[in-house]
């Protein structure tokens, strides 16, 4: 009996909390991805690189003496014009071509290649790690966890809820949903569709940047960091249902729990195939994912 309790206290619970912080991290990245897809029908293959840019901005500005709390605000603000320019300057150029999915995917894939290489040029190929903004650890019922992980979970969920509220409960969100549901109808009702598109893309990019700031102290910063993370984010978006916020949150939390808990049973090497099998299973049974998409109720 005690051994079971000890297993829970020292193995299971810490693993699940670590998994939860990972889940929040994945959801933050996936959220931007799913919003961009839900509205623009664009698979943003460069999303992972924007996440990396956010992390590098945090690293560079942090080294220049900017406090972590300020970074949480500044970095997303820097990302917004970047995202706006990418959408209106690049994506809109191919937006109305017949094969929008493939063309925009290719374009953002190329953009990701360039951005990753630019990061290598500026910051070098090595792994760096900013100091933990909140040092120390806490002890809850004998379960010891770093403070920053707890902050990450709470703050991450706050962001997720705020995003869901903005999309679902504000006039701004209503414009976004209207443009996603029927572009022409929204335009005829006076929604500035092209600005909404660029703005939404920028918003998704800002979320990726914010995720970069928050996760840099946990997962380290290196030029290909986005590429490693994006597979999980894509899986979450697919399973949750492209364009669905609630689906992304649920899929993100569940899949990361599957990942960390399965690694207790089998070698961690095989946790990715397990997660992927779930994705394939979901796609086979429900190709549209577990939940619908923005604007499509």
């Amino acid at each position, binding site marked *: 009996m005690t051994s079971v309790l000890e297993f829970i206290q020292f193995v299971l619970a810490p693993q699940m909390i670590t998994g939860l912080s990972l889940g929040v991290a994945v959801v933050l990245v996936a959220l931007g991805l799913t919003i961009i897809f839900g509205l623009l029908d664009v698979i943003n293959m460069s999303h992972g690189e924007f996440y990396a840019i956010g992390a590098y901005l945090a690293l560079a500005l942090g080294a220049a003496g900017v406090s972590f709390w300020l970074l949480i605000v500044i970095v997303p603000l820097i990302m917004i014009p970047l995202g706006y320019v990418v959408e209106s300057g690049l994506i809109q150029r191919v937006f109305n071509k017949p094969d929008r999915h*493939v063309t925009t995917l290719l374009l953002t894939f190329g953009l990701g290649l360039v951005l990753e290489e630019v990061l290598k040029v500026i910051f070098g190929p090595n792994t760096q790690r900013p100091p933990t903004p909140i040092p120390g650890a806490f002890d809850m019922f004998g379960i010891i966890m770093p403070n920053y992980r707890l902050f990450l979970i709470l703050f991450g969920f706050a962001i997720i809820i705020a995003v869901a509220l903005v999309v679902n409960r504000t006039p701004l969100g209503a414009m976004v949903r209207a443009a996603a549901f029927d572009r022409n109808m929204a335009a005829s009702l006076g929604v500035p569709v092209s600005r909404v598109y660029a703005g939404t893309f920028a918003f998704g990019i800002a979320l990726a940047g914010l995720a970069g700031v928050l996760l840099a102290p946990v997962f380290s910063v290196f030029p290909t960091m986005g590429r490693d993370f994006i597979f999980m984010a*894509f899986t979450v978006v697919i399973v949750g249902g492209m364009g669905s916020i609630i689906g992304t949150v649920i899929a993100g939390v569940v899949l990361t729990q599957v990942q960390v808990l399965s690694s207790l049973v089998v070698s961690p090497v095989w946790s990715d195939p397990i997660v992927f099998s779930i994705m394939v299973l979901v796609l*086979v049974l429900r190709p549209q994912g577990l939940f619908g998409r923005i604007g499509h109720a």
Partner: protein
Amino acid sequence: MPSAPSKDSSSFLAFDRSGLAMRASHVLVAVLVVAALGFAAVGAALNDTFFLRLATEALILGGFALSVDILLGYTGLLSLGHALYFGFGAYVSALVLKETPSFWAAMGVVLVTTLVFGVITGLIANRVRGVYFALVTFGLAQVAAKAVYNTRALGASDGLIGIPIVPINLGFTTVMSNAPVAFFLFTLVFVILLYAAAAYLLDTSFGRVLGALRANEHRVPFLGYSTHRARLSIYVFAAVVAALSGALYPMLRGFVSPELMFFATSGNAVITVVIGGVGTLAGALYGSIILTVLKSVIGTLTEHHLIVIGILFMAVVIFLPKGVMGVVRPGIARLLGGGTR
């Protein structure tokens, strides 16, 4: 994904023009062969090894890109994990060659195993369409690459090294895989045969069904064709083309590594096809040569050649939807007598 509107009454004419475009592709491939023969002659005269081997690799990657174009150009399905089959072919070939250095045994085993592997993975990938297809193929390759990367028996992260020199018995002569000129010429013939097989297949009634699938998938079953079987068949065919190209890789380099299955390899093939020209087949071969030349030229100036290639790629996506072939091929088609419009 909204279904594409059906083609108007000019589709009959479009077929005729597509036949002409394919003939133009054949002419361009013939030009490529002549250029390659000239290159081989110069290489042989100068006793070169480095550039001949680089060109051989470009051809092998061209064969791989060809398989990506078969999917993307003729069914509209973008595979982001096609390196899975290229790497699969390379690994199977390497494993066979380490047992017995027989070219035909390696090719036979690669062909049979890829057919089985392609059907299994194809059944999974073809459950979905559009962007989902891209992401599922991406995921399949990612998982396979991780599995190989962590499997001791397959050499894990080191890959398989020490693959012996392979004598390729062609009946009338034997090509050694370490002879630069002979192996280059052999690879040239091999890749041209892959091209010919693809061009032939896509010109049959089966190829027409694929074209119909692309235009309007919902209408094809009403004409009595199985969409499912057609999609799976072309998927497996593309997998075989990729795997057979991959099977040459260990013969050229003497080793295989898990990088062959990584996303970078898949992505490279996509870049190759897009720069060369989607749906032209010849574009895949030209794209591979263009990319190899670019990489070695820019690579001597900076190690960050991906910036240049990435920007070039984006420019092609935006400004040249049919890639380099889109610029060159219409001119050739006109020369062949396409002044009907």
